[in-house]
């Protein structure tokens, strides 16, 4: 087993763990955290794939940077929405 394979498997496990959280948890902030864990799993697969060649693959690194920005944008909106939604419940 090589280092790349180790991190590929780790990424896959994180992804599945995030999926488990998304399926099982009810509280919205926790579900948002689960989605982020799932995202980290995919990013880990991508970064591990980038580490296959002697010089790491710049395309995958760039795609993960893009993915990170997309993830934080969506997370920010989801958190605001969940807070607004929760306040509706309280009234």
């Amino acid at each position, binding site marked *: 087993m090589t280092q790349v394979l180790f991190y590929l498997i780790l990424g896959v496990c994180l*992804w599945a763990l*995030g*999926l488990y959280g*998304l399926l099982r948890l009810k509280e*919205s902030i926790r*579900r*948002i955290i689960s*989605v982020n864990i*799932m*995202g980290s*799993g*995919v990013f880990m*697969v*991508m970064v591990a*794939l980038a580490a296959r060649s002697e010089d790491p693959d710049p395309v*995958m690194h760039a*795609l993960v940077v*893009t*993915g990170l920005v*997309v993830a934080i*944008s*969506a997370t920010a*909106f*989801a958190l605001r*929405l*969940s807070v*607004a*939604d929760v306040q*509706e419940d309280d009234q």
Partner: protein
Amino acid sequence: MTAALIALLLPLFTALCLLLLRSRSGVLVIVTSLLTLLAAAWSLYDVTVNGPQWLELGDWPPPLAIRFQLQPITALLLVFSAMIHLLVAVYAAGSQHSKTRYTDFWPLSCLLQGSLNALWLSGDLFNWYVTLELLGLAAVALVALSGRKAYGPALNYLLLSLGASLVYLLGVALAYGRYGVLDISLLGAMTEADTTTRIAWWLMTLGLMLKAALWPFHLWLPRAHASAPTAVSALLSALVVKGPLFILWRLWSEGAPTELAVEAGPVLAVAGIAALILGGWSALRTPWLKSLVAYSTVAQLGYALMALGLLMYWQLPALDAALWLFVLAHGLAKASMFLAAGELQASLGSKRVSALRGTTETMPVAMFAFAVAGGSLIGLPPSGGFLAKWLLLEPMFETVNHWPWVVGILLGTLISAGYVFRVVALAFDRADPVPPDFSPDRFAHWLALLPALVVWGLALISEPLIHWLTGVPL
């Protein structure tokens, strides 16, 4: 290609200008939508005359660059989305019941159109991921325009959409890991039917099915579409769910190896039939008017999914035409239905189906629009819906042992007839009509009728349209 690029960038520029100037001018959006429509029509003409075209962004050589591809169906979809967007913009600016006139609806809908056009033109797996996220965020933001009561469904929609994107993205990562390119046409030449490819394609498919609300992943759709403002519901049902469907189609018809497509086809087709029957059943049962229309979207997407599945299973390119005719016919009919339903429920002051009693007397035009659009959904000849269904049925009549699919379509047709007639029958019950709360908006009713008439008008140009879609020169 220049025309297609204009159709892509014009909505984006409009959105940015509206935001910079803090303007909520519907007129500006209508004018630019019209220009976008013209540009899209020009690109359609261009592609018919000069054939499919490519544009390498930044002029980089192919495996590196993201490529735009303009093929006949892309151009047709550009025209289709510009048309629906223009119609909805006119409605949102003109109707007295439109709740979106003084909101950020304008820049958001322009961004929605821009991201959709980006999706149609692209052919790059990762770029599609970004456009899907754009589309999802714009859609959720538009749903949230309806205020606090929509936040729950909006959040649910957003979380599912984010999860689905990550399922899709993992599939993209695996495909890249296996083949080392992201362009769908290049992938098509390389793919082999091995385990990694199979799993990658299924991951992408599952993510996209969730995004397109294809059965059994449709549960988020009715709540989200029903709680959105009327103009937004029309956009979501007519356009947004078609984006992932387009990617799904290109993924399987262009990118996948034949063995895999043949293997996966029946599964998708059966899911399509299940969507037809179960979605239709829910539409028959629901007491809410907008939920009925939303569930009918779930059911109608079943036809498209079935066409896609059978297209893969039998490797019949002729079914491409059936698939895209369904998409066009459904988009037009659904825009009409949602606008009519929104107007009806706003004038009646009730969201229940039962409030429609006697509306043929009080609001005949809106009800007529609903019924005409419903006719196309059922597939009454000579509507666009009928045309699509006919194309789908044609290969089935050729071989005897294809009868189970025919039975599925028949059942779906019966159920859709059931929920359309449920509404129409109530509307003709003039004994004790529910009076509208205030004077109905005639202009909006006629506007709702327009796309329904266009669907039926499709039948007039059926022959050249089918020839053109199937790529057979006249």
